[in-house]
């Protein structure tokens, strides 16, 4: 195929079968999806889960929406609230995540020209995580995975995941990072701050930890794609670099300043502001920015190509890279 395909690296699908598997456990623990926030937020989210159901369940509706947005291929990941990392039982969680991945694999198999699956990993158990990672690649043929910014409060940069990241690096997978609000949401209950501030904050902390905890120093081949433009850090890196140069408790033996590791990351375009995308391109290169839509949520972008079109000073080559070239490269699509 010579023509450049438009690839959306940030879009979601629900998995009802996996939800059914963990439902008894969710009921026992009193967990309900997307219920952090004030009363109005909980109500709006509940309503949205219902109204979005056709988009989540019907591939035909999804394909129509993709056509309307000008998206050829969705690099499809699970709705992050369904990353069931809170399920402690090893067998139950493995079964749920296998169900998720089998479902994503089927969507891809039914429409190989339109979908690429990003696997979901039971990170709460590092052994299951590696096992399911290998199955995703060897049996299901996945080229990337989705990753939360923490696992029930444990940083993904913590030492217990060293082996996991080593394996991901060797497999050459793209890792799409997506938050689910902030772990300490007490002051983010109103105004949907759990999302508008919580998401970019989680990404900022996660990126900071991957850098300062030395994950990028040890596994420089990892291909992390941050959602929501990487949160606050890509534009506010000056404070990190200054602290690194000024303070021993920040430097902590890290050989290079944080911004150098930050340059190894990739960022999606889900920021609603062409100038911010322009900043990311100028600072990190057009080869580090990828189109995303957050489909089908209300915090998503329905005209992603229009948004990229409004970024000033981009060449056609740059636009091609952002719209799909970079995703094709990171996912190893021919």
């Amino acid at each position, binding site marked *: 195929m010579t023509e450049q395909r438009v690839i959306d690296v940030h879009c979601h699908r629900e998995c009802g079968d996996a939800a059914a598997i963990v439902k008894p456990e969710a009921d026992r623990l009193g967990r309900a999806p997307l219920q952090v926030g004030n009363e109005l937020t909980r109500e709006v989210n509940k309503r949205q889960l219902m109204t979005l159901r056709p988009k989540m369940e019907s591939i035909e509706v999804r394909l129509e929406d993709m056509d309307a947005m000008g998206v050829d291929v969705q690099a499809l990941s699970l709705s992050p609230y369904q990353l069931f990392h809170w399920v402690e039982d090893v067998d139950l969680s493995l079964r749920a995540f296998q169900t998720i991945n089998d479902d994503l694999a089927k969507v891809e198999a039914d429409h190989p020209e339109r979908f690429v699956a990003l696997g979901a990993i039971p990170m709460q158990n590092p052994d299951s995580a590696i096992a399911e990672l290998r199955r995703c690649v060897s049996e299901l043929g996945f080229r990337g995975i989705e990753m939360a910014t923490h696992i029930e409060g444990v940083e993904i940069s913590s030492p217990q995941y060293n082996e996991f990241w080593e394996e991901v690096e060797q497999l050459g997978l793209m890792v799409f990072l997506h938050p689910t609000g902030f772990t300490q949401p007490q002051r983010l209950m109103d105004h949907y701050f759990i999302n508008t501030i919580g998401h970019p904050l989680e990404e900022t902390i996660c990126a900071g930890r991957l850098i300062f905890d030395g994950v990028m120093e040890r596994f420089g081949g990892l291909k992390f794609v941050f959602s929501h433009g990487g949160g606050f850090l890509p534009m506010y890196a000056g404070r990190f670099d200054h602290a690194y140069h*000024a303070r*021993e408790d920040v430097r902590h033996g890290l050989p290079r300043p944080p911004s150098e590791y930050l340059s190894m990351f990739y960022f999606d375009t889900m920021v609603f502001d062409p100038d911010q995308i322009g900043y990311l391109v100028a600072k990190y290169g057009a080869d580090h920015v990828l189109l995303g839509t957050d489909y089908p949520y209300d915090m998503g972008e329905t005209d992603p190509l229009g948004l990229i079109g409004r970024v000033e000073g981009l060449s056609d080559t740059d636009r091609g890279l952002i719209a799909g070239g970079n995703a094709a490269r990171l996912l190893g699509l021919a």
Partner: protein
Amino acid sequence: MTDPASPAGWVEAWQPTKTPKPDLRTVDVHAHTMVPESAELTRPHFRPELEPRTFYSSSVTKEINSEFYRLAQDKYTDPETRLADMDAMGIDIQLVALTPFHYFYWADNDLASQVAAMQNEAIARTVAHEPHRLIGVGTLPLAHPGAAVTEVSRIADLGFPAVEIGADVNGTDLDDPGLEPVWAALEEAGLVAILHPAGFTEAKRLTDYYLVNVIGMPLSTTLAVTRLILAGVFERHPGLRMVLVHGGGFLPFYWARTDHAFRHRPEMRGHIDRLPSEYLADLYFDLTVFDAELVKTLATRFGADHLMIGTDYPFDMGETDPLGLLAETGLDEAGFRAVAGENAIRLFRLDWTRAGRTQRDGSG
């Protein structure tokens, strides 16, 4: 040789700037002092859990900070040391505000009133040392709005053009209805509010790598200003003028997500009619972001007339060469002059021909 990444190294960091100073008074709107006797007075009532930056700091961070405070004591309290460092930075005029770790917002009504008055008197004495170059910024007992309103008029009487306020009051957000009289009093007195955070209250995951400060400070400002906007504080108090330090945290470049949510989510609406970013555009931002590209982005978005030099003097998270940073942005001459001093002279009315100033100069 002293390790530059050490408390001792930072104390030596003030070297004369090589950047030519414009032929106008340069103004630093973000600098700190401390009032040791106020710390003594409040010590028996100290509530460590309400000082998040310290409470969530790692032990190595606490050691580094103690060592720094010990070595840098003169910079906080001795006007001559301050003036010498201002000379090195190319700064003519500095607004002198309390270090946020001396807010002591957890003090009860009587103690808080007493402490704020003591601190404001001490700041007045410091700036009286060189009234042409040092300008006082007051502090308020914000947990007790009645006392804060009283202190606003005392601060105006001291001739200060501004007050410094925390980004939250013991975890209570600034849009709390109880603070309405304070905003009205500031508006009425024509005092500028300089919003300065003291760390983030929910900082459990920010303990390592000094993230309590590196992320906690801008985060705290981001949350505070977003709430002030959405709750309609600026809508109800159009005369309230506010300066955000550290470049205003994250919102000045990440406003579009909040605007999008405002358009599509009912939780955001109810108090304001315009987009959140439009209220943000009425505020002012300092340059303590360590990145000329970001400064340029802020200038493009908000106009060079909304930016001012800030140094965070004498903290190690400060800028020791503000004119160098400003030169690096490539702003045109008018923009450079505006940011270097003209904006602050206008906003804080640092006009030496005004009667009040002349009077104070005469008594100094």
